[in-house]
């Protein structure tokens, strides 16, 4: 029986060996994407989508959809994002018995990815942009309606004091521009009023349906990524008192704390090594601090901040971290119990598996990683017709660091033309 348990454990270990964290698996894709090497990023993501388990597949498709949008592959971007959206909608508000068991025993990452509210809103916003850029205006208007519904569904549910950081002004702005194009100025005003509380400089003086304007939306920086932090430890009794010996993340050495023996169900847990893993959001270094659009060869002004997605992600994480820590603690405790309380062969299997899971324990580091840190907007009245638009990015010291490729933007008389352009990290 022990032999069987060892074989089983080795099988799980072999599987677990390939279980690098999501952030690790996305690392080269992120580098390619932010370097503007979209073909290479898509190649990486193609492999990740094919090799991924069901739990991560839709998230990788979401990432690929975003990269395809940046690469101008609008139709395939729409397909990717719609597949992901459909699945996210299907699983929202449901529970899976298998997942409940696996997250209790293995890790939080063993369940299907459930996107954060701001990610769901942004999914439809990028779908809107994909339809818009592909010229399918009808599809863009449908996505606008979905964006507005999601905003009311997710942001509308939070208490007023929580609202601003969890709002997604980028989504509101894009919806408002489409309302202006349709002549629905009251609806546009409602969205701009919500943005005004956060970024008053980003909104137009008044919504209008007669001016011919270019609306440049650019992304700067990388969204924060989650990394896995692990605390390893064990309990020991010294002179009748119970102590916890913990190795904290960051190589700070071993810490010893006196703990109440009430935490333990008996002396059996003493000396048993456990791992307590939890995710931590890390801000990514920013290269570009400012963006100045160049329209028809003339640097025309500075794009202003429209959305701090990094801040929104951090706030949402802060709200969730309590539950995440509690679940991790419960999982660690169950593993300890299984290791020490089960008798006979079952106990030995539990012991092997617990040690194994403890060794490979990783936090769930999944999040939409091709999102930007910040979105900036620049809006200018232009003559109807074709215009050349490019973006110059400057660092905090005002030095030019890069310039985007020039793209042609066609603006219809009396309409607003959205021009979304991905930017540097």
């Amino acid at each position, binding site marked *: 029986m022990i032999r069987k348990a060892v074989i089983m454990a080795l099988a799980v270990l072999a599987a677990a060996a390939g279980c690098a964290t999501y952030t690790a698996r996305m690392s080269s894709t992120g580098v390619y994407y932010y370097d503007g090497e979209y073909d290479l990023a898509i190649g990486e993501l193609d492999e990740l989508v094919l090799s991924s388990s069901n739990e991560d597949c839709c998230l990788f498709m979401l990432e690929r959809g975003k990269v395809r949008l940046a690469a101008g592959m609008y139709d395939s971007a729409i397909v990717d994002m719609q597949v992901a959206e459909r699945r996210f909608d*299907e699983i929202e*508000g449901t529970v899976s018995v298998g997942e409940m068991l696996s997250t209790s025993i293995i890790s939080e990452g063993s369940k299907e990815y459930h996107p954060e509210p701001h990610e769901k809103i942004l999914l439809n916003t990028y779908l809107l942009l994909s339809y818009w850029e592909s010229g399918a205006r009808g599809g863009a208007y449908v996505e606008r309606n979905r964006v507005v519904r999601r905003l009311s569904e997710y942001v509308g549910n939070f208490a007023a004091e929580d609202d601003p950081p969890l709002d997604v002004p980028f989504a509101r702005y894009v919806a408002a521009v489409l309302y202006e194009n349709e002549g629905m100025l009251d609806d546009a005003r409602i969205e701009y009023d919500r943005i005004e509380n956060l970024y008053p400089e980003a909104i137009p003086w008044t919504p209008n349906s007669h001016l011919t304007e270019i609306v440049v939306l650019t992304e700067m920086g990388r969204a924060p990524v989650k990394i896995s932090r692990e605390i390893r430890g064990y309990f020991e009794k010294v002179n009748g008192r119970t102590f916890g010996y913990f190795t904290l993340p960051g190589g700070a050495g071993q810490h010893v704390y006196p703990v109440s023996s009430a935490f333990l169900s008996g002396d059996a847990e003493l000396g048993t090594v456990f791992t307590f893993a939890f995710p931590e959001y890390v801000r990514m270094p920013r290269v570009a601090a400012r963006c100045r659009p160049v329209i028809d060869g003339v640097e025309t002004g500075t794009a202003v901040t429209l959305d701090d997605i990094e801040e929104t992600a951090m706030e949402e994480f802060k709200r969730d971290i309590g539950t995440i820590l509690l679940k991790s603690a419960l999982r660690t405790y169950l593993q300890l119990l299984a290791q020490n309380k089960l008798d006979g062969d079952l106990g030995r299997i539990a012991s092997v598996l617990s040690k194994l899971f403890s060794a490979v324990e990783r936090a769930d580091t999944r999040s939409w990683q091709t999102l930007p840190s910040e979105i900036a907007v620049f809006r200018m009245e232009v003559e109807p017709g074709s215009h050349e638009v490019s973006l110059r990015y400057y660092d905090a010291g005002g030095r030019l660091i890069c310039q985007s490729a020039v793209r042609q933007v066609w603006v219809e008389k009396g309409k607003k033309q959205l021009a979304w352009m991905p930017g540097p990290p």
Partner: protein
Amino acid sequence: MTRLFAAILCVLLLAGCAPKQTWDIDLDTDTAEDADYTSSDLLTISDQMITSIKANGFSQHYAAAHGGQKPVMILARALENNTDEHIDTRMILDKVRTALIKDGVAQFVDDQAFDMALDQLNMQATDLYDDRKAAQLGRFVGAHYIMRGSIGNIRKMEGRETRNYFLITMTIVDIETLLITWIDEVEYKRGSTKGSVRW
């Protein structure tokens, strides 16, 4: 115990080997799968609109005033889609048009054949074609009416429950006067709940 496991394994294997199944669904008795727009909605909307147009009697009035001729109509490109779903609204217009032509209520000019017809006429006007057998220029029939409309929805979601209200409005507009010759609407509201447990 071993026999039981073997039996379960056999059942699972056999179940996995079962041939792929297909079946026909009766369109008349088909019901909606969820709160979204479905094929049964398409049938309900188009049936009600066709019945309403026929009952309106404007086709007969037109015939009486125009020596027995049927009114000539053209479709708008699609119904204006104000919903939060990607719906091919052209299907509703196509179904209504098919029924009106089949029942002899109206004639339609094909809004989507214009470019192709123009190309053909231009080609046939060249020396490549036999003049006597070529289609003649200047014989397009102008539509007197436009059939258009819109579809909108209000969706409310709470937890696993969705409630979706749809309003579909269709009109026939006189091109000369912009007067609405016929108008009707279909509305419905449907709720659906997702199962709380998934496997």
